[in-house]
Every structure is written in structure tokens, then in C-alpha cells.
């Protein structure tokens, strides 16, 4: 089906400017992923498409850079004792099922309502989910910051306490991140939702990490690190599926990987310098900013479907550019908070070391 001629049509010519751009976006995306467990994909996929890469090839190539990146990030964060491999694999398996189902829904929507229908579905999913989950995460981070309890251990939510208290014989498994036995049945819908979101908006972590924190009761640092295991499992399966159809542009994937492996190492190290609420803050801020980016595009797709009156071509173009600009801004803001927090943490540590040495003398 996909012979060499088709492949040549799928794979664009790469110039130096594109290589540098992908490397840089990869770096920033990697930095954020190393820190919060996901991110970057929502900029990378449209970035590739703007270079003329077909949509499916962009999604496939993004996925093929995601799993090796997540692997390196997970290994790095495992060194700091932040990864719960068992929870990651359990959630990863149901997430894989979610990815397949999410892709199936996407295909049916595309068949029934065309490209604009599919875009409208993706954007609406973005807006609704990011508004609810992102708003909640950001509010929680803000409350912790305002209450001055940033140094205290994170509190397990009432919901998580209930989940941990339910005993369903034959399904109970101990997870070290929760320091409790929970029924694996609870992990299935969470993993599934993570996968569905990954198939829809490419960033499953926006559901995966908050659900591990608020529903299961994992600390933020462990939830974000464990998300990397989920991303690896999902990314590996997804990449293979796309590669079977010859859709992976390995050059794009590896160029992004070149930048993102620099970033993910840095982001992973960054987590050892910060307080837990910073993870929530970065995640919440990115989610809420991205929400506006997608919300801008909703009227464009609605007009394409004839649900509202037609929007002028110039306005559509302008909305698209602003929407893309906001997404880059979201990623850059996240990266800025990570680097700033890391910088401050390193400075505090240096001062503490100097002080300790001063006492010794």
C-alpha cells in the first residue's frame, strides 16, 4: 500500500532552518516533559504540519520521538527514586487501549464530518478538559502557594483516600508511589482516559498526572515521573502501529529527539531542586494557556462546518497564527518557570554549602 513513491510524498525535504527549529522546540518540549511528565507535543505536531508534513506523519513522527525521550527521562528520574514502574506499566497498558479507541473515534468523526469536524472535536476536547483539569490543578497550586505550606508534604485528597480504602478482593495491588494497596480496577478508566486524550490532543499527561495525584493519591513528583513510563508504553505501541503503515518520518523524530534529550535531562534534574507544588504550577499554567490557543480555533472550525456564519479568510489566517503563537508562549512560559525554579534551587544549595563550609572553618 505504502510503496516508496508514496513514502517520498509523505516525507518532506528538510532544510537547515527546519532542522534548527525542530531541535529547539524539541529541547524546550523535552525540558517541560522531564519536569511534568509530558508536554511539547501540542507544539511539535502543528510545527511539523506547518512545514508541509502530512498530519498523520506529524503525529507518527512525534510519537516516535516521544517513547525514547520518555525512556531516558524515566531512567533519569528513577535515579532520584521518583518513578513507580509498576503503576506506570499498569496505567500504560490501559492507556494503550485508550489510544486505540481514541484513534478509532477520530477516524469515525473524520469519516462522518470531515477534517473540520475532526478538528472541532479535538479543539473542543482540548478546551473542555483543559478548562476543568487545568483550572483545578492551577487553583490547587495557587492555594498551596498562598497558604505558605509549600514546604509541607502534599495532602492526599478525600477522593484518593476513599479510593485507597475500597477493598475489592482479587484486584488489590500495592503501589509504592501511593504507599497503599488499591484495586487495579480504579486504574483502568484513568489509564484509558489518558490514552484517549493522548490520541486526541497528543498530551495524555494532562489527564494522567492529575489523576494520579488527585484520584489515586500519588505525590506530584512521583506522578509526573511515572507519567514518563506511561508515555513510553503508549508511545512505543503507537509508534509501531504507525510504522506498520510507513508513516514515521524517522529524520523528523530523531532531530526532535536530539534536542529533547538535552531538555529532558535538564528538566528531570530540575525536579530535584523544586517543591512539589511547582510541578502543579507549571502544568496548570501550560494547560490554561493552551486552552486559550485552542478556544480561538473553535469558531474557525464551526464556520467551516456551517454551524455559524462564514469567517473571512484573513481572519481565519490571523486566528491560526495567534493560536499557534499562544501555544509556543505556553511552552516557553513552562520552560521559563522550570529554569527559574532550578536556578533558584541551585543558588540556595550553593549558599547552604558555602555556609556549611564557613562553619567548618
Amino acid at each position: 500500500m505504502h510503496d516508496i513513491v508514496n513514502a517520498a510524498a509523505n516525507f518532506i525535504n528538510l532544510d537547515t532552518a527546519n532542522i534548527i527549529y525542530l531541535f529547539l522546540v524539541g529541547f524546550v518540549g523535552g525540558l517541560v516533559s522531564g519536569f511534568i511528565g509530558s508536554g511539547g507535543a501540542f507544539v511539535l505536531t502543528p510545527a511539523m504540519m506547518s512545514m508541509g508534513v502530512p498530519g498523520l506523519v506529524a503525529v507518527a513522527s512525534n510519537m516516535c520521538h516521544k517513547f525514547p525521550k520518555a525512556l531516558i527521562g524515566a531512567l533519569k528520574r528513577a535515579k532520584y527514586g521518583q518513578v513507580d514502574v509498576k503503576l506506570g506499566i499498569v496505567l500504560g497498558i490501559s492507556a494503550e487501549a485508550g489510544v486505540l479507541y481514541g484513534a478509532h473515534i477520530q477516524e469515525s468523526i473524520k469519516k462522518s464530518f470531515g477534517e473540520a469536524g475532526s478538528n472541532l472535536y479535538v479543539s473542543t476536547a482540548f478546551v473542555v478538559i483543559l478548562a476543568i483539569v487545568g483550572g483545578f490543578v492551577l487553583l490547587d497550586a495557587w492555594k498551596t502557594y498562598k497558604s505558605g505550606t509549600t514546604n509541607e508534604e502534599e495532602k492526599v485528597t478525600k477522593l484518593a483516600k476513599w479510593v485507597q480504602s475500597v477493598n475489592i478482593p482479587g484486584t488489590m495491588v500495592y503501589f509504592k508511589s501511593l504507599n497503599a494497596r488499591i484495586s487495579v480496577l480504579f486504574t483502568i478508566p484513568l489509564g484509558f482516559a489518558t490514552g484517549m486524550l493522548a490520541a486526541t490532543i497528543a498530551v495524555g499527561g494532562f489527564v494522567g498526572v492529575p489523576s494520579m495525584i488527585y484520584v489515586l493519591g500519588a505525590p506530584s513528583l512521583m506522578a509526573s515521573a511515572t507519567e514518563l513510563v506511561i508515555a513510553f508504553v503508549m508511545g512505543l505501541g503507537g509508534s509501531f502501529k504507525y510504522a506498520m503503515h510507513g508513516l514515521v518520518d524517522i529524520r523528523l523524530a530523531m532531530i526532535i529527539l536530539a534536542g529533547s534529550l538535552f531538555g529532558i535531562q535538564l528538566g528531570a534534574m530540575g525536579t530535584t531542586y523544586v517543591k512539589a507544588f511547582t510541578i502543579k504550577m507549571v502544568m496548570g499554567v501550560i494547560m490554561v494557556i493552551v486552552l486559550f490557543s485552542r478556544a480561538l480555533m473553535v469558531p474557525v472550525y464551526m464556520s467551516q462546518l456551517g454551524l455559524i456564519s462564514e469567517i473571512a479568510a484573513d481572519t481565519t489566517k490571523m486566528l491560526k497564527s495567534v493560536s499557534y503563537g499562544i501555544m509556543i508562549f505556553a511552552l516557553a512560559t513552562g520552560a521559563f518557570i522550570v529554569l527559574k525554579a532550578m536556578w533558584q534551587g541551585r543558588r540556595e544549595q550553593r549558599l547552604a554549602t558555602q555556609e556549611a563550609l564557613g562553619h567548618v572553618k
Partner: protein
Amino acid sequence: MAESKVRKKPVGKMLLMGVISVALYALLLLKQDVINGYIGQGGMYAFLPIITAFLFSFVHGTFTGDFWTVMGIEAAKKKKEVK
């Protein structure tokens, strides 16, 4: 100064992995038509991009890890275990 925290930086290893990484990228870009020709066929060739990704992540991942260490950027000394 004979401070206790003199730790050898992995300069040699970083350079070695860096050279291998550059060589892999050069190979990928110089032979892109051949590589894309195979990968674009899909089917059992699906293993090719997966193996490539693992190989690059090992080599380049080791290089980037050592790169930051050589640059003097490392994880915080305390907070090893998260509670």
C-alpha cells in the same frame, strides 16, 4: 584546594558518545533517501524506526546526560528520595 567534592567529570565518555551520536545523525541525514525508502514501506520494516529510536536514545541520551554533568549541572544533593 583539596576539597572533598572533587569528582572526575566524564569528559572522555562524553566525547566518545558525542562523536558516535554525530556519526549516527550524519548517517541518517546523508542516507535519508535509502532509509526513508525502507521505512516508508511499513509492514515488517516497522521495526526499523523502533530500533533506530532505541539506538539513538541510548547513544545520544548518554551523551546529553554526560554533557550536563561536564557543564557542572547536576541534580540536587539532598532530596534523593521522594516521600
